[in-house]
């Protein structure tokens, strides 16, 4: 897996000219990056505000420790800032951004003490049909503690955390970054079919998990 993704890839938005003074909110990500590369700090500010929540949550969902997730999050933005001067808008910005994030996450996890745990999870993830391994007792205890106060949203967050790594990745890229299956496949360096399959299983596992957690079926 490549840890340093190049920002170069074909995309139609690269042909757009850089506006001299523009309504930053209406500009595409690529244009904002080019503007920042040309010395416009406000363009970066707009770009950052546009993507900061999604990227932050992406890391937070993967890494339970918030400080560690923040570090990784900062690292990614630092990369974006440094590479802005050489940025060629030939790839969709979000695809490039989340490719950096995914690679960073994988590299970091490998070098942490939790590497074994993650690797075991990754091995399980090789099969797209992997499901959430919820022990009945664990569910019972947690469910008992939250039985009256747990809301569906928190249950969902819990279930996402229980998802296998590959399914979680696909789900977050879909929901947080808003990427298409094709782009998810590009970020995760997998085939379209594999990404699609992972997504399907992720949603299915979440449905089952939510049913167990809340005691009522979503559908």
């Amino acid at each position, binding site marked *: 897996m490549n840890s340093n993704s190049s920002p170069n890839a074909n995309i139609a938005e690269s042909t757009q000219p850089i506006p001299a003074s523009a309504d930053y909110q209406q500009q595409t990500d690529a244009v904002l990056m080019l503007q920042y590369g040309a010395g416009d700090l406000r363009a970066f500010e707009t770009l950052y505000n546009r993507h900061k929540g999604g990227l932050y949550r992406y890391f937070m969902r993967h890494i339970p420790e918030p400080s560690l997730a923040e570090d990784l999050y900062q690292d990614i933005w630092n990369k974006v800032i440094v590479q802005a001067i050489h940025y060629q808008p030939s790839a969709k910005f979000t695809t490039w951004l989340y490719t950096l994030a995914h690679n960073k996450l994988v590299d970091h996890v490998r070098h942490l003490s939790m590497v074994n745990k993650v690797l075991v999870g990754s091995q399980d993830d090789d099969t797209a049909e992997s499901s959430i391994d919820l022990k009945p007792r664990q569910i019972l205890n947690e469910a008992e503690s939250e039985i009256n106060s747990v809301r569906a*949203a928190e249950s969902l967050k819990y279930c996402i955390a229980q998802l296998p790594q590959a399914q979680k990745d696909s789900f977050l890229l879909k929901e947080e970054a808003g990427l298409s299956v094709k782009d998810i496949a590009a970020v995760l360096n997998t085939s379209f079919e594999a990404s699609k399959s992972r997504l399907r299983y992720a*949603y299915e596992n979440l449905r089952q998990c939510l049913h167990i957690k809340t005691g009522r079926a979503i559908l």
Partner: protein
Amino acid sequence: MKPNNRDESFDLLAHEKKISELYQYNKEQQGEIPRGQVDSEIMAMAKQQLSKNTSLLTQDHKHSQAASANKNAPAKTLKAWQWPFSLVASVGILGILFITQRDYFVDPLNIIARDADIVHEPDMLTPNFIEAENLTEEIAADPAIKVKQMKASTQKPEMMLDENPLGKERTAEASKRMSFRQTSKVLHEPMLDYSTLEDNSLHMSPISLADLSKLAELLKLELTKQNMSEVEARASSVKMQQTLFENLVQYQKSHTEFTLTDQYLSVLTEKQVKQLKLAFTEAVPEN
């Protein structure tokens, strides 16, 4: 449930849509965003990098300017030296041309004299008759060589050489001594020994005394011409002298009573006069 993965489209199923809506709702409600401190740190990084980029760009610009200046420097030096170099080269080439071809520039007469040999033509065309005469006598006196005298006006004298080695030796020596300076191609044409003159007389149209006189006058006039260049005058007069000389010889042969006057002798060269006199003295006893 086995999802259909055959086409590249991906539409969320009903329960998937519900989950997605739930997630998006949760996202908005919780407002899970990085802390303000993290935001400010990142923005500070962005600002710092921007100033770095600006300085880098300035340095790059300076480097590119310096590089372009360095590239232009040799070109400018070349251009600066191009002019004087061309001038010196031109002068040098002209100088070499002048030195090698100096004769053509300084003394044009030399060119004509060297190239055409016109000036020396009379000397070369004039055979050594005295020597030839002596040699003829010597050959005649030699018993090894039989000289068969033919009729002067119609036939050339033929020399029948014996086969003995002494005769051959003598003949070789004689022929060597009789050989004229035949370096020039022009020499082959007007052979001015007796036989040639006699031979020429056959082909030459008879010229009257009046014409000869006119020719002599013309030659005299030619020799005294001052306005003509020296070379041209000499060249033309030499030709006229030659013509007059040949015609006088011819005339002498056919007119024994003809006497050479100063009119002719004054315009001919000394050699020609000598030869003419010699021919005249020989022609008189013969007739």
